[in-house]
């Protein structure tokens, strides 16, 4: 703690010469800290009860089993059981597939949309509002729209009607195991891309115009300017959003629940988050769900470690 006194001599002087003032200052310091913590206590209480404590409790729970009110330590039992669940590997495969698809579609699309919007001189406000509008819809509302109207497997569905008008083959959408994941990513991207677009737009506006000018004088074409100026200048945001996107997509839950009624055809929609929910709140296997939670956390931590290692090495 920094005190407001001048450095050196005066401090030493007061300390040795006036011991009474010293104890006075200490009690004021204590009082200041008590006040400080009085303002913090509400938030600390909520963090302790709803994030810090559950974090530890989740880890402990994953090694325990509660039967008829008696809790016993069972070691790795919950882990072996959860890994032996026939949906375990499909859930991971689907989640990773979703994350990769979401990175290609849900990550690249907003970036290029932001670049496009940044170049336009008109209707900017209108376009920004449009792109962000779906973000404000409750996900349940938006997903019912997709489920019943867009992904209707008959020709009356919105997407099939469009495909048919373009003379393209129609799809069974959620009824077809192959189409389930891409369909979920499309719905999820539509719902969520608005915030990424706006964050990119803000960071694009911070790029100094002289950089483009200089690149152009050096004869750099449009793509070269994007590659050599836009991308390096927005690298920090690109990296941050990639990380956020991966954490978000690892938790895909409401999409499979609503669009595919949970697991979908032949586990085609089961995600890790859905499996946690399934174990915890349907099969009444809270301990198994806790174990899967710990596995998820470790997987993400390992992933972030690798990611940080790779990105910092490049700098």
């Amino acid at each position: 703690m920094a005190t407001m006194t001048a450095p050196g001599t005066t401090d030493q002087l007061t300390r040795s010469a006036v011991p009474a003032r010293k104890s006075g200052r200490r009690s004021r310091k204590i009082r200041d800290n008590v006040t400080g913590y009085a303002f913090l206590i509400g938030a600390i209480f909520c963090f302790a009860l709803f994030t810090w404590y559950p974090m530890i409790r989740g880890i402990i729970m994953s090694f325990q089993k509660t039967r008829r009110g008696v809790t016993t330590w069972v070691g790795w039992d919950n882990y072996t059981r959860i890994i032996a669940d026939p949906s375990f590997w499909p859930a991971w495969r689907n989640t990773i597939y979703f994350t990769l698809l979401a990175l290609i579609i849900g990550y690249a699309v907003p970036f290029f949309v932001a670049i496009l919007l940044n170049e336009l001189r008109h209707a900017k406000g209108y376009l920004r509002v449009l792109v962000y509008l779906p973000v404000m819809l409750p996900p349940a509302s938006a997903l019912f729209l997709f489920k019943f109207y867009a992904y209707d497997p008959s020709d009356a569905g919105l997407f099939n009607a469009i495909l048919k008008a373009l003379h393209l083959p129609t799809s069974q959408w959620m009824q077809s195991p192959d189409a389930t994941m891409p369909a979920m990513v499309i719905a999820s991207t539509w719902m969520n891309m608005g915030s990424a677009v706006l964050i990119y737009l803000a960071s694009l506006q911070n790029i100094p115009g002289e950089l483009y000018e200089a690149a152009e004088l050096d004869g750099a074409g449009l793509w070269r300017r994007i590659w050599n100026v836009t991308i390096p200048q927005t690298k920090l945001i690109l990296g941050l959003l990639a990380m956020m996107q991966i954490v978000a997509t690892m938790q895909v839950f409401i999409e499979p629940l609503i669009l595919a009624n949970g697991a979908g055809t032949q586990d085609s929609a089961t995600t890790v988050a859905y499996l946690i929910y399934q174990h915890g709140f349907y099969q009444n296997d809270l301990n198994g769900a806790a174990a899967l939670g710990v596995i998820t956390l470790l997987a993400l931590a390992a992933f972030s470690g690798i990611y940080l290692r790779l990105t910092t090495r490049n700098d």
Partner: protein
Amino acid sequence: MSQNSGTRTLISQAQLQRGKGKVVYWTLLSLVVVSFTLVFIGPLYWMVTGALKTGQEIAQTPPTLWPQDPNFSNYTNAWSNLNLSKLLFNTFYYALGAVLFQLVFDTAAAYSLSKLRPVLGNVVLGAMLATLMIPVIVLIVPQYVTVIDLPLVHTSLINQPLAIWLPLVANAFNIFLLKRFFDSIPDDLMAAAQVDGAGPLRTLWSIILPMSRPILGVVSIFSVTYVWKDFLWPKLVMPDGSTRTVSVGIVAFSGGSSVNEVIAASVIAAIPTVIIFLIFQRNIMSGLTAGSVKG
């Protein structure tokens, strides 16, 4: 969010105003405006008008662009069958409480961390920010177990609004956002108030808060929309038909009713957040970018 038509972007202003550039620009602009309207408004139009159609008309190929015989029975049925007035009221009540709890506790915490700086304040802030790394889904089971049987007091918060309000206070992003804003308010102002004999609470109330209106507005809007959009947590802690939120209610209702009624209910559930957005879009957009790092 300015009309920065003067600043140079990827393509130079001069290039856009030349003959060929001008043609390309205007074609592109109209293409973008039309396609974005179709992609982002189109589905909403489909949803609102679809719920005005009868079951037969919805199943008809090719689909009709405008309902042949628009009737509001899907909307009125959804309203009464689903008890939407009660569900909307619940959601509104939870959202309002969430705003109050977050404003009071998160503002106090951010103020303490920014201006009072008690011992180990940075450690507390670090422990708070670290929770941003933990995916919600990982914590859902132990959080639920905590809420059904609170440690020490051994009561359950199930079907109690506090089960929604309290966990939302543990929002590191809000505290970070508020703290950064408070950091930008000069300490001299605080010192001046102290000389005048104002205590920390009074300084917060009459100096810091009035200066922080924009950020407080952003935090409030975000917390309302968060509660309105959240699904899994309210589903778990508000399981009763009389306490559930509108999103949870629609999903619970979707199994046993007609497609058009579910869609009509979805439209009604979306109206409040869309209205909030249209009113506060400027604040929302500035808040969204305020938290981001300069790239």
